[in-house]
């Protein structure tokens, strides 16, 4: 459970270059031996690069209405009869390039996913640290709250938060707040996972001598929690956070698909699937199938990488 796993496998590393040290580290070796991780990592890298560089790689800017032409609408993918360059995956009913839409949509999806995990991870880890370190009544209340929330599957809670926010917010503000609401809904529905995991780690770590030493040295509770305990439970947090990005991306897509997430004006993989679904029976099947496949690919890639990290950093979590 300690941070040693991440450090160098070779004891006398001073003479070697940093790159070589990384190449030879346990983590890199286990990565090279894990085909799933290599495939997942490569896919993830490509997808993330495409999403990040969307304004430069995408054939068209789907938000620049001036470039859209209804003449180009409802074009099928390029390998089918009627497909037109540069619309590789075809176009939607407005004439926007589907591949560009997917690239831009993936940006939103990944942004929401990372933000939601940042929220649940920070909140859950902080509460888990406090519950584990102080224990007693404070810890009891925190873990009781986590238990209560655990009774419900996270997706129901996220739906509830999204739905209530829609009911409470006036229509004029909904589009503005849609993104923060989704991040909140997903983040707040998943913090107990982090809290439970971190508390468990802290309970083990705080009995160790280095914590007693820090206490004797006169360090305060906050300093011990943040500077001593947190680094030693970072491994488990990191693994869970990686896997949780997959949950959050899937959660965003689910909320948006069901109409309780982002509005159609804010393209994400979920909103693309939602708006494309209505054309499935009309013949424009590519509008829902390709965003759906992209979503699957993102989640599979994250899970492959997360699975490898779990095995490499923390065999006990398997």
């Amino acid at each position: 459970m300690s941070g040693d796993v991440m450090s160098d496998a070779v004891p006398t590393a001073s003479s070697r270059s940093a790159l070589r040290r990384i190449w030879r580290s346990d983590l890199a070796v286990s990565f090279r031996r894990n085909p799933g991780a290599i495939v997942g990592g490569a896919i993830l890298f490509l997808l993330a690069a495409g999403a990040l560089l969307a304004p430069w790689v995408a054939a068209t800017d789907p938000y620049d209405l001036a470039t859209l032409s209804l003449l180009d609408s409802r074009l099928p993918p390029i390998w089918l009869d009627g497909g037109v360059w540069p619309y590789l995956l075809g176009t939607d009913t407005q004439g926007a390039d589907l591949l560009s839409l997917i690239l831009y949509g993936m940006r939103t999806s990944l942004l929401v996913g990372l933000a939601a995990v940042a929220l649940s991870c920070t909140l859950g880890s902080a509460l888990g640290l406090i519950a584990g370190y102080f224990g007693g009544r404070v810890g009891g209340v925190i873990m009781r709250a986590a238990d209560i929330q655990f009774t419900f599957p996270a997706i129901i809670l996220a739906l509830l938060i999204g739905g209530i926010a829609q009911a409470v917010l006036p229509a004029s503000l909904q589009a503005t707040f849609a993104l923060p609401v989704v991040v909140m809904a997903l983040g707040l529905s998943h913090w107990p996972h982090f809290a439970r995991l971190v508390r468990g780690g802290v309970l083990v770590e705080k009995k160790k001598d280095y914590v007693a030493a820090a206490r004797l040295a006169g360090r305060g509770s906050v300093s011990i929690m943040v500077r001593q305990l947190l680094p030693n439970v970072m491994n488990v947090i990191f693994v869970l956070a990686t896997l949780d990005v997959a949950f959050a991306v899937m959660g965003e897509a689910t909320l948006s698909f069901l109409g309780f997430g982002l509005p159609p004006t804010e393209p994400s993989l979920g909103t693309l699937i939602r708006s494309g679904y209505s054309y499935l029976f009309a013949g424009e099947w590519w509008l829902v199938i390709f965003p759906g496949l992209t979503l699957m690919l993102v989640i599979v890639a994250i899970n492959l990488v997360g699975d490898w990290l779990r095995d490499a950093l923390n065999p006990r979590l398997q």
Partner: protein
Amino acid sequence: MIAFLARRLVHGALVLLVVSLLAFALSAFVGDPVASILGLNATPEDRVVLRERLNLDDPWASRYLSFVGKAVQGEFGMSYSAQRPVIDLVLERVPATLELAGVALAFSLLIGLPIGVYAAVFRHNWSSGAVMMLSVIGVSLPSFVVGILLIFLFSVRLGWLPSFGRGEVVDIGWWTTGLLTVSGLTSLIMPAAALAVGQVALIARLVRAEMLEVLRTDYIRFARARGLKPRVINLSHALRNTLIPVITVSGIQLGFLVAFAIVVEAVFQWPGLGLLFLQALGSTDVPVISAFLLLAACFFLVINTIVDLLYLVADPRLRVRGGLSSEGAL
């Protein structure tokens, strides 16, 4: 055992307290029941009369108590949009969701178990690695996307299966079943499969892990030494001891299946509880949302308690430690 049950009772009471407060807060602060019932054209006098009839001006503590009192008797008021008692709406949707989740669970066990056993027995085989890799993919597939792909393939392209609804149903007393008609069965295949895909992968991984553990034990080595056939050892010695955790996990999975059924029901317009909840959420039909939350809380509490009890019965070691909490195994 008694201490465990007592703790579960306290936990359950707390959960119900929190959820009922939440449900009550929804009905008190979200939406305006007077406007929802009377519409926008009502006179101010009518509004005052209705406010009094609904006791909306009482202190909130007494309103909460009467809310709980009615909820215990199954009275959740009238649905705003359907203008029918909420409890009737909910009860007539229960069979659809339970049949969907039950069949999905059966699918995932029937397919996941053999795959897991295979991957454990032939663990040095390349095919076992491939199976495990596929299972990572299986766990990652969002059920609604699987549903859409199935509809595209089997309804739009091939035209073999219906893409929405439950087909013809048969009334058996207060239960309606789609399992007895051809159209009911064909309607059930795709939603259940979409729901089961992720669970198949989970069950397969679990069975493999447990089976590998069992295959390492002394009694299996002893059975091998006695010259028993591998088939007998694998199936009647090893698998039997693998099944205990699988049964308990299936219980937890049933809970998750019901939760994810919400999404699948939306894809297939399956007339179950999940669709009811989504429609209520979309139209801010607060009485229906409140009822759904309270019933879901009871359902998950019961499932979690049964699962924990099964653990205790199956694994005597846990009795000493005083039981573990299994809720949220994912």
